[in-house]
């Protein structure tokens, strides 16, 4: 998908008569902001194990809202289609097995070919964590502004690592493991 078109704000000098094209540019800017890129994806499968030797990319299998086609079933990440600064938020639900296991989670950006950072290592941000209870598991939440301007083709995914052999993710009636992205500004 090519993404939404970032609006162009016209310059209308004093004393001139605004053209229809200029007025429609202003209207298009409002249309963009009312329907800006936002996507929310989640894991409705469950059962994924969190490793204690390497960080795990958390699986995503469904989408609730996706105004800019950032999520594709089969991918475990968001693909940016419209350049801009984005806000990212996530939640991880871990089942209860072994009490005391700790989990650390974070968001990560993989830079695509349009980014000036293409070819560099992925950027990590929004770290969080929690300690598991043996019966009730734990819920990990985190998020914030992605600390870099995102370009079309950049991928944003969610990672997690356990301190010991981790329990499986659960779905149940709690909000499922998942993440969301919201365009903030150009």
């Amino acid at each position, binding site marked *: 998908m090519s993404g939404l078109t970032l609006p162009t704000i016209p310059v209308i000098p004093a004393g001139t008569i605004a053209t*229809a094209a200029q007025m429609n540019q202003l209207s298009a800017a409002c249309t963009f902001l009312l329907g800006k890129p936002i996507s929310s994806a989640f894991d409705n499968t469950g059962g994924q194990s969190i490793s204690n030797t390497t960080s795990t990319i958390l699986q995503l299998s469904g989408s609730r809202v996706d105004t800019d086609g950032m999520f594709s079933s089969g991918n475990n990440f968001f693909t940016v289609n419209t350049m801009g600064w984005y806000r990212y938020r996530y939640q991880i639900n871990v089942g209860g097995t072994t009490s005391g296991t700790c989990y650390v989670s974070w968001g990560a950006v993989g830079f695509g070919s349009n980014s000036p950072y293409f070819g560099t290592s992925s950027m990590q941000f929004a770290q969080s964590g929690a300690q598991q209870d043996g019966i009730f598991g734990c819920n990990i939440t985190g998020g914030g502004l992605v600390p870099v301007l995102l370009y079309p083709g950049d991928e944003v995914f969610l990672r997690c690592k356990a301190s010991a052999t981790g329990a499986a993710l659960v779905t149940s009636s709690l909000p499922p493991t998942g993440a969301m992205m919201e365009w903030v500004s150009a």
Partner: protein
Amino acid sequence: MGECLMATIPTPPTFASNDSSMDNLIALANCVTFLSDCGTRPEFHLYHKGSTVSLTSLTDKTLTLGSVAFDSDGVSDGTGATIVTQGWYDFTCCASFTPSTTSAVLQLRIEMISGASNPHFTSGTTVFIATSGGDAVDLATADTAYSFGGLSPTCLYPGDKIRLDAWMDSSGSFSVNDNVNTSFMVGRYPPTLTGYFVCPGT
């Protein structure tokens, strides 16, 4: 619940050549107002003020957020929020719980209880929006505090209720701390719930 103001979601106009329509200019101005003015676009910040609220083990406790910092769409209903304007919303909450030296599980949830207008759920269905929790701090000198949020699971409709619920397991002994403003580790801030309109939807 306060006066139902219901924000009007604007429609960007289309201009024709030699367009002299004042209505179109006003429609454009309304768009800008909605997008830039949080007194027009639905946003709210509610908090708890008053007596300490104790939790009962293995029982959900709805925190009363009856105080209003700001509420542009009249959503405050004395307990939490009741949605007035249809759309997707984002919520953030925070709460701190009194210290307990007993190892316990403590959980905080932002919940939505669907109203009669929401076509996605049977009226009265509870849906969790975001949850944070796990083993609580077991020190006598520090609160267990949570701060998190999430996007609504569906587009919300007028009548959908937003609640902040706390839960602890049988080994816990917690209460919600009000802002006593005497320590940086205990009772530093009151429970709060913030929400804002993100975009239109169905």
